[in-house]
Protein backbone atom coordinates (compact mmCIF):
# COMPACT_ATOMS: atom_id res chain seq x y z
CA UNK A 1 0.00 0.00 0.00
CA UNK A 2 1.43 3.34 -0.99
CA UNK A 3 0.61 5.90 1.62
CA UNK A 4 0.61 9.65 1.08
CA UNK A 5 3.55 9.82 3.48
CA UNK A 6 5.60 7.32 1.51
CA UNK A 7 4.97 9.24 -1.66
CA UNK A 8 5.98 12.52 -0.05
CA UNK A 9 9.05 11.28 1.76
CA UNK A 10 10.38 8.71 -0.66
CA UNK A 11 8.87 8.55 -4.13
CA UNK A 12 8.70 12.26 -4.82
CA UNK A 13 12.33 12.97 -3.81
CA UNK A 14 13.30 9.99 -5.94
CA UNK A 15 11.37 11.46 -8.89
CA UNK A 16 13.21 14.77 -8.43
CA UNK A 17 16.53 12.95 -8.59
CA UNK A 18 15.43 11.00 -11.68
CA UNK A 19 14.30 14.19 -13.43
CA UNK A 20 17.64 15.83 -12.70
CA UNK A 21 19.68 12.93 -14.10
CA UNK A 22 19.68 13.96 -17.79
CA UNK A 23 20.81 17.43 -16.78
CA UNK A 24 23.56 16.04 -14.55
CA UNK A 25 24.68 13.75 -17.37
CA UNK A 26 24.81 16.71 -19.74
CA UNK A 27 26.95 18.66 -17.26
CA UNK A 28 29.32 15.68 -16.87
CA UNK A 29 29.63 15.46 -20.66
CA UNK A 30 30.28 19.17 -20.84
CA UNK A 31 33.01 18.89 -18.19
CA UNK A 32 34.39 15.84 -20.04
CA UNK A 33 34.34 13.81 -16.84
CA UNK A 34 35.28 10.10 -17.10
CA UNK A 35 35.72 10.20 -20.85
CA UNK A 36 32.23 11.58 -21.49
CA UNK A 37 32.02 13.92 -24.44
CA UNK A 38 29.53 16.18 -26.18
CA UNK A 39 31.21 15.92 -29.58
CA UNK A 40 32.21 18.64 -32.01
CA UNK A 41 28.91 20.52 -32.09
CA UNK A 42 28.16 20.95 -28.37
CA UNK A 43 25.71 23.85 -28.76
CA UNK A 44 23.35 21.77 -30.84
CA UNK A 45 23.67 18.65 -28.70
CA UNK A 46 22.84 20.61 -25.53
CA UNK A 47 19.93 22.36 -27.24
CA UNK A 48 18.47 19.17 -28.64
CA UNK A 49 18.92 17.01 -25.54
CA UNK A 50 17.25 19.68 -23.38
CA UNK A 51 14.36 19.99 -25.83
CA UNK A 52 13.83 16.24 -26.01
CA UNK A 53 13.78 15.81 -22.23
CA UNK A 54 11.47 18.80 -21.84
CA UNK A 55 9.02 17.17 -24.22
CA UNK A 56 9.35 13.73 -22.61
CA UNK A 57 8.65 15.14 -19.14
CA UNK A 58 5.71 17.13 -20.47
CA UNK A 59 4.19 13.95 -21.90
CA UNK A 60 5.03 12.25 -18.60
CA UNK A 61 3.10 14.91 -16.74
CA UNK A 62 0.15 14.46 -19.09
CA UNK A 63 0.25 10.70 -18.46
CA UNK A 64 -0.49 11.09 -14.74
CA UNK A 65 -4.23 11.71 -15.00
CA UNK A 66 -4.87 8.69 -17.27
CA UNK A 67 -2.64 6.68 -14.93
CA UNK A 68 -4.90 7.58 -12.02
CA UNK A 69 -7.94 6.40 -13.95
CA UNK A 70 -6.20 3.17 -14.92
CA UNK A 71 -4.86 2.37 -11.45
CA UNK A 72 -7.77 3.81 -9.51
CA UNK A 73 -5.19 5.18 -7.09
CA UNK A 74 -4.61 8.85 -6.24
CA UNK A 75 -0.77 8.80 -6.16
CA UNK A 76 -0.11 9.65 -9.84
CA UNK A 77 -1.63 13.10 -9.30
CA UNK A 78 1.12 13.86 -6.81
CA UNK A 79 3.65 13.71 -9.63
CA UNK A 80 1.79 15.80 -12.16
CA UNK A 81 3.07 19.22 -11.11
CA UNK A 82 6.54 17.88 -10.34
CA UNK A 83 6.92 16.53 -13.88
CA UNK A 84 5.39 19.63 -15.42
CA UNK A 85 7.79 21.94 -13.59
CA UNK A 86 10.82 19.85 -14.52
CA UNK A 87 9.61 19.93 -18.10
CA UNK A 88 9.44 23.70 -17.89
CA UNK A 89 12.96 23.82 -16.45
CA UNK A 90 14.37 21.76 -19.33
CA UNK A 91 12.49 23.77 -21.95
CA UNK A 92 13.58 27.07 -20.39
CA UNK A 93 17.20 25.84 -20.62
CA UNK A 94 16.50 24.68 -24.20
CA UNK A 95 15.41 28.20 -25.02
CA UNK A 96 18.37 29.76 -23.19
CA UNK A 97 20.77 27.48 -25.09
CA UNK A 98 19.26 28.53 -28.40
CA UNK A 99 19.33 32.18 -27.38
CA UNK A 100 22.84 32.40 -25.92
CA UNK A 101 24.91 29.51 -27.26
CA UNK A 102 23.42 28.79 -30.66
CA UNK A 103 22.55 32.37 -31.65
CA UNK A 104 25.00 34.26 -29.38
CA UNK A 105 22.24 36.74 -28.46
CA UNK A 106 22.11 38.08 -32.02
CA UNK A 107 18.67 39.67 -31.64
CA UNK A 108 17.91 40.55 -35.28
CA UNK A 109 18.70 36.97 -36.26
CA UNK A 110 16.61 35.56 -33.39
CA UNK A 111 13.65 37.76 -34.30
CA UNK A 112 13.97 36.72 -37.94
CA UNK A 113 14.06 33.08 -36.87
CA UNK A 114 10.92 33.42 -34.77
CA UNK A 115 9.08 35.35 -37.47
CA UNK A 116 10.21 33.40 -40.53
CA UNK A 117 10.75 29.81 -39.42
CA UNK A 118 7.39 28.22 -38.62
CA UNK A 119 8.85 25.48 -36.41
CA UNK A 120 10.63 28.11 -34.31
CA UNK A 121 7.48 30.26 -34.22
CA UNK A 122 5.39 27.47 -32.73
CA UNK A 123 8.17 26.30 -30.42
CA UNK A 124 8.57 29.82 -29.08
CA UNK A 125 4.78 30.19 -28.71
CA UNK A 126 4.63 26.93 -26.76
CA UNK A 127 7.37 28.13 -24.44
CA UNK A 128 5.59 31.47 -23.81
CA UNK A 129 2.34 29.64 -23.03
CA UNK A 130 4.15 27.52 -20.46
CA UNK A 131 5.30 30.52 -18.43
CA UNK A 132 1.88 31.36 -16.88
CA UNK A 133 1.36 27.68 -16.14
CA UNK A 134 4.67 27.46 -14.28
CA UNK A 135 3.94 30.67 -12.35
CA UNK A 136 0.45 29.62 -11.28
CA UNK A 137 1.47 26.08 -10.40
CA UNK A 138 1.70 26.86 -6.68
CA UNK A 139 -1.01 25.92 -4.18
CA UNK A 140 -1.53 29.61 -3.40
CA UNK A 141 -2.28 30.55 -7.02
CA UNK A 142 -4.50 27.52 -7.39
CA UNK A 143 -6.61 28.57 -4.40
CA UNK A 144 -6.74 32.16 -5.58
CA UNK A 145 -7.85 31.32 -9.12
CA UNK A 146 -10.40 28.71 -8.08
CA UNK A 147 -12.28 27.20 -11.02
CA UNK A 148 -10.41 29.40 -13.49
CA UNK A 149 -7.18 27.62 -12.56
CA UNK A 150 -8.37 24.42 -14.26
CA UNK A 151 -9.42 26.32 -17.37
CA UNK A 152 -6.05 28.10 -17.52
CA UNK A 153 -4.12 24.88 -17.10
CA UNK A 154 -5.94 23.29 -20.03
CA UNK A 155 -3.38 25.34 -21.99
CA UNK A 156 -0.97 22.50 -21.34
CA UNK A 157 -2.71 20.56 -24.11
CA UNK A 158 -1.97 23.38 -26.55
CA UNK A 159 1.64 23.48 -25.34
CA UNK A 160 2.06 19.74 -25.85
CA UNK A 161 0.53 19.79 -29.35
CA UNK A 162 2.77 22.72 -30.37
CA UNK A 163 5.80 21.04 -28.82
CA UNK A 164 5.33 17.76 -30.72
CA UNK A 165 4.54 19.66 -33.90
CA UNK A 166 7.72 21.75 -33.43
CA UNK A 167 9.77 18.53 -33.18
CA UNK A 168 8.07 16.97 -36.22
CA UNK A 169 8.61 20.09 -38.29
CA UNK A 170 12.28 20.63 -37.54
CA UNK A 171 13.45 17.14 -38.50
CA UNK A 172 15.18 17.04 -41.88
CA UNK A 173 13.80 13.75 -43.15
CA UNK A 174 13.74 10.97 -40.58
CA UNK A 175 10.43 11.60 -38.78
CA UNK A 176 10.36 8.29 -36.90
CA UNK A 177 11.33 9.78 -33.53
CA UNK A 178 8.96 12.79 -33.59
CA UNK A 179 6.17 10.48 -34.73
CA UNK A 180 6.63 8.42 -31.56
CA UNK A 181 6.10 11.58 -29.48
CA UNK A 182 3.04 12.51 -31.57
CA UNK A 183 1.61 9.01 -31.12
CA UNK A 184 2.08 9.13 -27.34
CA UNK A 185 0.43 12.56 -27.22
CA UNK A 186 -2.46 11.34 -29.37
CA UNK A 187 -2.93 8.41 -27.02
CA UNK A 188 -2.92 10.63 -23.92
CA UNK A 189 -5.34 13.16 -25.43
CA UNK A 190 -7.52 10.41 -26.92
CA UNK A 191 -7.80 8.83 -23.51
CA UNK A 192 -9.16 12.10 -22.11
CA UNK A 193 -11.71 12.45 -24.92
CA UNK A 194 -12.88 8.90 -24.37
CA UNK A 195 -13.22 9.54 -20.63
CA UNK A 196 -15.11 12.80 -21.21
CA UNK A 197 -17.54 11.03 -23.52
CA UNK A 198 -18.09 8.28 -20.95
CA UNK A 199 -18.87 10.89 -18.30
CA UNK A 200 -21.30 12.67 -20.60
CA UNK A 201 -23.38 9.54 -20.94
Amino acid at each position, binding site marked *: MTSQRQVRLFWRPLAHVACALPLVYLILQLAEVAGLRL*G*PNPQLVIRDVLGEWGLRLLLGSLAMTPLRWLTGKPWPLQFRRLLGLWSFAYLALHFVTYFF*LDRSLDLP*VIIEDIAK*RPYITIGFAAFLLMIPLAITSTAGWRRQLGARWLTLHKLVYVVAVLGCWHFYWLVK*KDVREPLVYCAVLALLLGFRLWKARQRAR
Partner: protein
Amino acid sequence: MLIRKPSDIKSSEITPERTYLNRRALLQAAGFAGAGTLLSDALAADDAIPAKYQRLAGVRKSPFSTTEAPNKFEEITGYNNFYEFGTGKDDPAAASGRFRPKPWKVKVDGEAEVTGTFDYDSIVKPHVLEERIYRFRCVEAWSMIVPWVGIPLGDVLKRYKPTSKARYVAFETVVRPEEMPGQKYPVLDWPYVEGLTMAEAMHPLTLLVVGVYGVELPNQNGAPLRLMVPWKYGFKSIKSIVRISFTEQQPPTTWNLAAPGEYGFYANVNPKVDHPRWSQASERRVSSGLGSLFAARQPTLPFNGYADQVASLYKGLDLVRNF
Protein backbone atom coordinates in the same frame (compact mmCIF):
# COMPACT_ATOMS: atom_id res chain seq x y z
CA MET B 1 25.05 42.87 -43.36
CA LEU B 2 27.33 40.26 -44.76
CA ILE B 3 31.02 40.98 -44.39
CA ARG B 4 32.82 39.53 -47.35
CA LYS B 5 36.15 38.03 -46.47
CA PRO B 6 38.58 37.97 -49.34
CA SER B 7 38.91 34.49 -50.78
CA ASP B 8 42.18 32.88 -49.85
CA ILE B 9 42.81 31.86 -53.45
CA LYS B 10 43.51 34.90 -55.59
CA SER B 11 42.24 34.82 -59.17
CA SER B 12 45.82 35.33 -60.30
CA GLU B 13 46.83 32.13 -58.54
CA ILE B 14 44.31 30.07 -60.47
CA THR B 15 45.90 28.42 -63.42
CA PRO B 16 43.72 28.01 -66.49
CA GLU B 17 42.51 24.43 -66.61
CA ARG B 18 44.45 23.47 -69.72
CA THR B 19 47.79 24.85 -68.51
CA TYR B 20 47.19 23.24 -65.19
CA LEU B 21 46.49 19.84 -66.67
CA ASN B 22 49.53 20.09 -68.96
CA ARG B 23 51.67 20.93 -65.99
CA ARG B 24 50.30 17.92 -64.18
CA ALA B 25 51.17 15.66 -67.10
CA LEU B 26 54.65 17.10 -67.11
CA LEU B 27 55.07 16.57 -63.40
CA GLN B 28 53.86 13.02 -63.75
CA ALA B 29 56.29 12.38 -66.56
CA ALA B 30 59.11 13.81 -64.48
CA GLY B 31 58.25 11.24 -61.84
CA PHE B 32 57.95 13.84 -59.17
CA ALA B 33 61.55 14.68 -58.73
CA GLY B 34 60.67 17.82 -56.84
CA ALA B 35 60.51 16.80 -53.20
CA GLY B 36 59.10 20.20 -52.28
CA THR B 37 55.79 19.34 -53.86
CA LEU B 38 55.29 16.26 -51.71
CA LEU B 39 53.12 16.54 -48.67
CA SER B 40 55.11 17.18 -45.55
CA ASP B 41 54.36 14.84 -42.69
CA ALA B 42 53.23 17.66 -40.43
CA LEU B 43 49.55 17.29 -41.22
CA ALA B 44 49.46 13.62 -42.06
CA ALA B 45 51.30 12.41 -38.99
CA ASP B 46 48.55 13.34 -36.57
CA ASP B 47 48.86 10.94 -33.58
CA ALA B 48 45.09 10.91 -33.29
CA ILE B 49 44.80 8.81 -36.46
CA PRO B 50 44.27 5.13 -35.58
CA ALA B 51 46.94 2.85 -37.03
CA LYS B 52 44.33 0.76 -38.87
CA TYR B 53 44.09 3.45 -41.54
CA GLN B 54 46.69 2.91 -44.23
CA ARG B 55 48.88 5.90 -45.10
CA LEU B 56 48.67 7.07 -48.69
CA ALA B 57 52.01 7.46 -50.45
CA GLY B 58 53.18 10.24 -52.74
CA VAL B 59 50.54 12.80 -51.83
CA ARG B 60 51.28 16.19 -53.30
CA LYS B 61 50.25 19.55 -51.83
CA SER B 62 47.89 21.76 -53.77
CA PRO B 63 47.70 25.52 -54.28
CA PHE B 64 43.92 25.14 -53.99
CA SER B 65 44.18 24.43 -50.25
CA THR B 66 42.89 26.95 -47.76
CA THR B 67 45.24 28.20 -45.07
CA GLU B 68 42.58 27.79 -42.38
CA ALA B 69 43.39 25.21 -39.70
CA PRO B 70 41.78 21.83 -40.39
CA ASN B 71 39.32 20.21 -38.00
CA LYS B 72 40.61 17.29 -35.95
CA PHE B 73 40.61 13.80 -37.48
CA GLU B 74 38.16 12.64 -34.80
CA GLU B 75 35.78 15.50 -35.62
CA ILE B 76 35.85 14.79 -39.35
CA THR B 77 35.35 11.06 -38.84
CA GLY B 78 33.01 11.24 -35.84
CA TYR B 79 30.49 13.89 -36.83
CA ASN B 80 28.91 13.69 -40.26
CA ASN B 81 25.88 12.68 -42.27
CA PHE B 82 25.85 9.37 -44.14
CA TYR B 83 22.24 8.21 -43.97
CA GLU B 84 23.21 4.77 -45.31
CA PHE B 85 24.56 4.14 -41.79
CA GLY B 86 21.83 5.99 -39.85
CA THR B 87 20.49 9.50 -39.52
CA GLY B 88 22.40 10.56 -36.37
CA LYS B 89 25.68 12.46 -36.63
CA ASP B 90 27.57 9.70 -34.81
CA ASP B 91 25.81 6.82 -36.58
CA PRO B 92 28.24 6.68 -39.53
CA ALA B 93 31.23 6.20 -37.20
CA ALA B 94 29.34 3.75 -34.98
CA ALA B 95 27.64 1.62 -37.63
CA SER B 96 30.11 1.43 -40.53
CA GLY B 97 32.48 -1.18 -39.06
CA ARG B 98 31.07 -4.00 -41.19
CA PHE B 99 31.36 -2.11 -44.47
CA ARG B 100 33.93 -3.58 -46.90
CA PRO B 101 35.37 -0.95 -49.27
CA LYS B 102 37.78 -3.48 -50.84
CA PRO B 103 37.60 -4.84 -53.49
CA TRP B 104 35.72 -2.04 -55.27
CA LYS B 105 34.36 -1.70 -58.76
CA VAL B 106 32.77 1.24 -60.53
CA LYS B 107 30.51 0.97 -63.55
CA VAL B 108 31.07 3.72 -66.12
CA ASP B 109 28.32 4.04 -68.70
CA GLY B 110 26.30 6.43 -70.84
CA GLU B 111 27.54 8.98 -73.33
CA ALA B 112 31.24 8.04 -73.42
CA GLU B 113 33.55 6.12 -75.72
CA VAL B 114 35.13 4.09 -72.96
CA THR B 115 32.53 2.33 -70.81
CA GLY B 116 32.50 -0.78 -68.66
CA THR B 117 33.27 -1.85 -65.12
CA PHE B 118 36.58 -0.71 -63.70
CA ASP B 119 38.26 -1.65 -60.45
CA TYR B 120 39.54 0.86 -57.92
CA ASP B 121 43.18 0.63 -58.97
CA SER B 122 42.42 1.21 -62.63
CA ILE B 123 40.55 4.37 -61.70
CA VAL B 124 42.94 5.80 -59.11
CA LYS B 125 46.42 4.47 -59.85
CA PRO B 126 47.11 6.37 -63.11
CA HIS B 127 46.86 9.63 -61.17
CA VAL B 128 48.91 11.51 -58.64
CA LEU B 129 47.17 12.07 -55.31
CA GLU B 130 46.81 15.61 -54.05
CA GLU B 131 45.96 16.97 -50.66
CA ARG B 132 43.25 19.61 -50.89
CA ILE B 133 42.33 21.41 -47.68
CA TYR B 134 38.81 22.57 -48.40
CA ARG B 135 36.06 24.33 -46.54
CA PHE B 136 33.10 21.96 -46.12
CA ARG B 137 29.62 23.46 -45.67
CA CYS B 138 26.68 21.23 -44.74
CA VAL B 139 23.19 22.33 -45.80
CA GLU B 140 22.32 22.09 -42.08
CA ALA B 141 24.45 25.23 -41.47
CA TRP B 142 27.54 23.68 -39.91
CA SER B 143 30.97 23.61 -41.47
CA MET B 144 34.43 22.11 -41.16
CA ILE B 145 37.88 22.42 -42.71
CA VAL B 146 38.94 19.08 -44.14
CA PRO B 147 42.29 17.95 -45.60
CA TRP B 148 41.00 15.61 -48.31
CA VAL B 149 43.25 13.50 -50.49
CA GLY B 150 42.11 12.89 -54.04
CA ILE B 151 42.35 13.44 -57.77
CA PRO B 152 40.72 16.17 -59.84
CA LEU B 153 37.55 14.43 -61.06
CA GLY B 154 37.99 15.91 -64.54
CA ASP B 155 41.32 14.09 -64.99
CA VAL B 156 39.58 10.80 -64.29
CA LEU B 157 36.50 11.48 -66.41
CA LYS B 158 38.58 12.45 -69.45
CA ARG B 159 40.01 8.96 -69.66
CA TYR B 160 36.53 7.61 -70.44
CA LYS B 161 36.24 10.03 -73.38
CA PRO B 162 32.78 11.53 -72.85
CA THR B 163 31.03 12.27 -76.16
CA SER B 164 29.58 15.62 -77.21
CA LYS B 165 26.18 14.38 -76.02
CA ALA B 166 27.42 14.18 -72.43
CA ARG B 167 26.02 17.26 -70.68
CA TYR B 168 25.79 15.87 -67.15
CA VAL B 169 27.51 13.30 -64.99
CA ALA B 170 25.41 11.14 -62.69
CA PHE B 171 26.75 9.25 -59.67
CA GLU B 172 25.33 6.41 -57.61
CA THR B 173 26.18 5.10 -54.12
CA VAL B 174 26.49 1.39 -53.37
CA VAL B 175 23.47 -0.46 -51.91
CA ARG B 176 24.43 -3.05 -49.27
CA PRO B 177 21.78 -3.17 -46.55
CA GLU B 178 23.68 -5.97 -44.79
CA GLU B 179 26.70 -3.70 -44.36
CA MET B 180 24.85 -0.38 -44.27
CA PRO B 181 22.13 -0.64 -41.61
CA GLY B 182 20.58 2.72 -42.52
CA GLN B 183 19.53 1.28 -45.89
CA LYS B 184 17.15 -1.14 -44.17
CA TYR B 185 14.71 1.72 -43.70
CA PRO B 186 13.60 3.83 -46.70
CA VAL B 187 14.34 7.20 -45.08
CA LEU B 188 15.71 8.10 -48.51
CA ASP B 189 15.06 6.34 -51.81
CA TRP B 190 18.14 4.07 -52.15
CA PRO B 191 20.46 4.09 -53.96
CA TYR B 192 21.59 7.62 -53.21
CA VAL B 193 22.10 9.41 -56.52
CA GLU B 194 23.71 12.74 -57.36
CA GLY B 195 24.73 14.65 -60.45
CA LEU B 196 26.75 17.56 -61.78
CA THR B 197 26.80 19.47 -65.02
CA MET B 198 29.76 18.56 -67.21
CA ALA B 199 31.33 21.98 -66.52
CA GLU B 200 31.03 21.44 -62.76
CA ALA B 201 32.43 17.92 -63.00
CA MET B 202 35.43 19.09 -65.07
CA HIS B 203 36.18 22.09 -62.83
CA PRO B 204 39.66 21.81 -61.29
CA LEU B 205 38.26 22.24 -57.76
CA THR B 206 36.01 19.17 -58.08
CA LEU B 207 37.78 16.29 -56.42
CA LEU B 208 37.39 12.52 -56.50
CA VAL B 209 38.38 11.78 -52.91
CA VAL B 210 40.22 8.66 -51.75
CA GLY B 211 41.54 9.80 -48.39
CA VAL B 212 41.63 12.30 -45.57
CA TYR B 213 44.52 13.49 -43.37
CA GLY B 214 46.94 11.53 -45.54
CA VAL B 215 45.29 8.16 -44.89
CA GLU B 216 42.74 6.10 -46.82
CA LEU B 217 39.15 7.27 -46.50
CA PRO B 218 37.40 5.81 -43.41
CA ASN B 219 34.16 3.90 -44.10
CA GLN B 220 32.03 6.56 -42.42
CA ASN B 221 33.34 9.25 -44.75
CA GLY B 222 32.41 7.47 -47.97
CA ALA B 223 35.12 4.87 -48.57
CA PRO B 224 36.66 4.10 -50.92
CA LEU B 225 35.66 6.79 -53.46
CA ARG B 226 33.63 9.91 -52.92
CA LEU B 227 33.11 13.29 -54.47
CA MET B 228 34.05 16.67 -52.99
CA VAL B 229 32.53 19.73 -54.63
CA PRO B 230 33.60 22.41 -52.15
CA TRP B 231 31.35 25.24 -53.36
CA LYS B 232 28.18 23.16 -52.96
CA TYR B 233 26.33 21.92 -49.88
CA GLY B 234 27.74 18.66 -48.57
CA PHE B 235 24.93 16.43 -49.81
CA LYS B 236 26.11 16.95 -53.40
CA SER B 237 29.40 15.24 -52.56
CA ILE B 238 28.15 11.67 -52.94
CA LYS B 239 29.93 8.87 -51.10
CA SER B 240 30.95 5.25 -51.83
CA ILE B 241 30.47 5.67 -55.59
CA VAL B 242 29.76 2.54 -57.67
CA ARG B 243 28.47 4.10 -60.86
CA ILE B 244 29.37 7.08 -63.01
CA SER B 245 27.09 7.80 -65.97
CA PHE B 246 27.48 10.47 -68.63
CA THR B 247 24.00 11.72 -69.54
CA GLU B 248 22.31 14.09 -71.92
CA GLN B 249 19.50 14.95 -69.50
CA GLN B 250 19.83 16.39 -66.00
CA PRO B 251 19.94 13.34 -63.71
CA PRO B 252 17.70 12.92 -60.66
CA THR B 253 19.30 13.70 -57.29
CA THR B 254 18.28 12.08 -54.01
CA TRP B 255 17.60 15.06 -51.73
CA ASN B 256 15.82 16.88 -54.52
CA LEU B 257 13.54 13.86 -54.94
CA ALA B 258 12.98 13.69 -51.17
CA ALA B 259 12.06 17.38 -50.74
CA PRO B 260 12.02 19.32 -54.04
CA GLY B 261 11.11 22.59 -52.32
CA GLU B 262 14.10 22.40 -49.98
CA TYR B 263 16.97 20.94 -52.03
CA GLY B 264 17.69 21.85 -55.64
CA PHE B 265 19.91 20.30 -58.31
CA TYR B 266 22.59 22.99 -58.03
CA ALA B 267 22.76 23.35 -54.23
CA ASN B 268 25.48 26.00 -54.45
CA VAL B 269 26.33 27.47 -51.06
CA ASN B 270 24.47 30.77 -51.01
CA PRO B 271 23.99 32.92 -47.89
CA LYS B 272 21.22 34.85 -49.61
CA VAL B 273 19.00 31.88 -50.41
CA ASP B 274 17.63 30.42 -47.19
CA HIS B 275 16.56 26.86 -46.75
CA PRO B 276 12.77 27.12 -46.28
CA ARG B 277 13.16 26.09 -42.65
CA TRP B 278 16.40 27.78 -41.64
CA SER B 279 18.74 30.61 -42.57
CA GLN B 280 21.84 29.93 -44.67
CA ALA B 281 23.36 33.34 -43.87
CA SER B 282 25.63 31.96 -41.17
CA GLU B 283 27.19 28.68 -40.16
CA ARG B 284 28.67 27.03 -37.11
CA ARG B 285 32.26 25.95 -37.54
CA VAL B 286 32.13 22.74 -35.56
CA SER B 287 34.73 22.45 -32.84
CA SER B 288 34.79 20.17 -29.82
CA GLY B 289 35.65 21.17 -26.29
CA LEU B 290 34.43 23.61 -23.68
CA GLY B 291 36.36 26.47 -25.23
CA SER B 292 34.16 26.55 -28.31
CA LEU B 293 30.91 26.59 -26.34
CA PHE B 294 30.49 30.35 -26.51
CA ALA B 295 31.89 30.79 -30.02
CA ALA B 296 29.59 32.69 -32.36
CA ARG B 297 28.49 31.52 -35.78
CA GLN B 298 30.36 32.91 -38.75
CA PRO B 299 28.96 34.38 -41.92
CA THR B 300 28.53 31.98 -44.82
CA LEU B 301 30.33 33.05 -48.01
CA PRO B 302 28.85 32.89 -51.53
CA PHE B 303 29.91 29.61 -53.14
CA ASN B 304 31.47 28.75 -49.77
CA GLY B 305 34.30 31.21 -50.46
CA TYR B 306 35.10 29.77 -53.91
CA ALA B 307 33.18 32.42 -55.87
CA ASP B 308 36.30 33.69 -57.67
CA GLN B 309 36.87 30.24 -59.09
CA VAL B 310 33.34 29.04 -59.84
CA ALA B 311 30.91 31.96 -60.13
CA SER B 312 31.58 32.14 -63.87
CA LEU B 313 30.07 28.67 -64.29
CA TYR B 314 26.67 30.15 -63.45
CA LYS B 315 26.67 33.31 -65.53
CA GLY B 316 23.13 34.17 -66.55
CA LEU B 317 21.61 31.56 -64.26
CA ASP B 318 19.04 32.74 -61.71
CA LEU B 319 20.60 31.36 -58.53
CA VAL B 320 17.49 32.02 -56.46
CA ARG B 321 15.31 29.91 -58.73
CA ASN B 322 18.08 27.38 -59.40
CA PHE B 323 18.95 26.82 -55.75
